[in-house]
């Protein structure tokens, strides 16, 4: 069951997606000021939340990895960083598309835009260090992941601490029930997709570690056999 769980999540997401999209486009009223472009909100916001959640998971897992030298924590941190990268890119691309439609400008240098872009760059740096750096750079990678996690509350508070054009955190809380009824399925579909992909990626990374160990043992056995022959 544990092995099948990520695929079950993806199948559930695939079942919810048509309903979520149909709700957003057919049943949700058009917002008076922003018009049709407001429908970007229903997938942009969940992507933003999941990007921040993945950055938090990555930071915590990296700290655990640093402390306990756990291979599982290392795999969770890397997989979460990859999904944080994908969700962050989604947010940073759909945000300016929405901004272009409603503010007339894709990028305004808004505090929330900048802090989100900073998080995405930190995640990108973490991925570069983990994928291409030597294993001795694990501490640097973990420090980057923890820095990314610290940026998450800054992103959340950015609209309160600084004067910004970006909608505040109260907007979601004050949504009328008709809009919540469309946001929940969209959030559910994206969350199930992200957690399904996270599960698959974690398993892949653990398998890759096991294979590396297998190859190392295999070459040790081969070396021992050669010594015996000599």
């Amino acid at each position, binding site marked *: 069951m544990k092995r099948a769980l990520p695929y079950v999540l993806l199948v559930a997401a695939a079942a919810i997606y048509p309903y979520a999209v149909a709700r957003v486009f057919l049943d949700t009223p058009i917002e008076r000021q922003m018009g049709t472009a407001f429908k970007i909100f229903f997938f942009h916001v969940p992507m933003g939340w999941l990007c921040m959640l993945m950055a938090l998971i990555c930071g915590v897992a990296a700290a655990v990895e640093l402390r306990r030298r756990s291979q599982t924590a290392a795999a969770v941190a890397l997989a979460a960083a990859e*999904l944080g990268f994908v969700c962050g890119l989604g947010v940073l691309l759909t945000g300016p598309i929405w901004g272009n439609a409603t503010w007339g400008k894709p990028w305004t240098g808004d505090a929330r835009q900048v802090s989100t872009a900073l998080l995405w760059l930190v995640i990108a740096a973490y991925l570069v260090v983990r994928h291409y750096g030597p294993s001795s750079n694990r501490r640097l990678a973990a420090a980057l992941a923890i820095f990314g996690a610290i940026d998450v509350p800054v992103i959340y508070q950015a609209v309160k601490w600084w004067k910004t054009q970006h909608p505040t955190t109260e907007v979601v809380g004050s949504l009328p029930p008709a809009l919540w009824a469309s946001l929940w399925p969209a959030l559910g579909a994206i969350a199930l997709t992200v957690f399904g992909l996270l599960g698959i990626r974690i398993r*892949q990374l653990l398998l890759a570690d096991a294979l590396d160990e297998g190859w190392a043992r295999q070459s040790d056995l081969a070396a021992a056999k050669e010594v015996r022959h000599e």
Partner: protein
Amino acid sequence: MNELTPPPTPAAGAPASDEYAPAIGFAAKDVEQVRIYEAKAEQKVARDYQHIVWAYGVLWALFAAYGIFLWRRSARLRADMDALRRALDARA
């Protein structure tokens, strides 16, 4: 000619309304022109499908790209596992 007169303020106790106030003191031609612009803007905002298509296209393309990345990685891991199994069988 077009003397701008502010619309009359609603009487105390009257329900607040954000609907169009009567345009007093404007030339009918100017009012008509403004209404044409407003109607055009309203149409543009209400049928802004270009931004929607781009935004949703980007989101699903990203997930599809990551899905393909995982699928290729899986295929590579499976090939690596088969190679290791063959190498171990050959040693046995």
